[in-house]
């Protein structure tokens, strides 16, 4: 009965949402390069404040098809007393 006034889910919204998800996955899979660059950038940023163990570094995507999270496990050797600038 609600059909007369309420709206059924439109198939174009289903299409759009499915596309957004599948493209998120496609784009990630396509960019191993980007992942490396991002890793390097994060190491650089964090190294200003703490000394990290780069060998033990883990960096990966977690989650399901609904949402993605970037999970980084960064072992810290020590905290720097003075902030180190990279330049």
């Amino acid at each position, binding site marked *: 009965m609600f*059909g*007369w006034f309420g*709206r*059924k889910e*439109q*198939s*174009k*919204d289903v*299409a*759009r949402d*499915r*596309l*957004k998800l*599948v*493209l998120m996955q*496609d*784009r990630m899979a*396509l960019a191993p390069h980007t992942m490396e660059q991002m890793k390097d950038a994060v190491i650089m940023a964090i190294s200003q404040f703490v000394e990290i163990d780069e060998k033990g570094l883990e960096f990966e995507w977690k989650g399901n098809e609904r949402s993605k999270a970037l999970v980084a496990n960064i072992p810290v050797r020590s905290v720097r007393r003075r902030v180190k600038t990279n330049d």
Partner: protein
Amino acid sequence: MSEAIVITSGKGGVGKTTACANLGVALASMGHKVVLVDADIGLRNLDVVMGLENRIVYDLVDVVEGFCRLRQALIKDKRLDGLFLLPAAQTKDKTSVTPDQMKQLVDQLKEDHDYILVDCPAGIEQGFKNAIAGADRALIVTTPEVAAVRDADRIIGLLESSGFDDPGLIVNRLKPKMVAKGDMMDIPDIIDILAIRLMGVVPDDEYIVVSTNRGEPAALAAEKSKAGQAFRNIARRILGEEVPFLDLNEQETFWEKLIRLIRA
């Protein structure tokens, strides 16, 4: 200053060849010297869409391999001054040409023509690499369907990593009534997803089937078809004009509306 434009899509069957033929016709009718290059070696089609299939003597591979001069392989379209076709070979495959050879060929064509439109094969392999090799800019054709938009996204990524920074999008076969009912993705959805510049929207049009049957691209007689008009508008945008997008909204009839409401 001449320009080479590759027309590509990733997915097959979305209307690359039709777009290429119609844009060529439109640009030539506006007084420009245009050559259409069929880069789909082994599966040539631009010749039949253009209605020039009976006049092929030499093809692209003959030129590249030195069997004939470039000028001998160009087919002149008798309907419009300044419109030429360089057909693909039908009995060879995509590996008979390299990207370097394609670039040379396109550069040579630029000497005598204002616009070189390259009809790219479907896929992302060698044929695609050949087709984009000599191009200055790229147009991507898609339809408002999940599979076509997904492939367009992949192609945009590949084009960007090959140095094409501002590709344009043509959305082909839009069905305004389905969009109005919410049963087809609309242009803002597609542009939002692909984050790319819109070059044109071509409505689904039965006249395209008729014109392809006859080998007479719709843009030759644009007054007969909305799709033909849409392609002419895209051609003007290629030339740098600001052209408003066609109003594709067809009003639902009373009965259609009633049936839709009852079904909802």
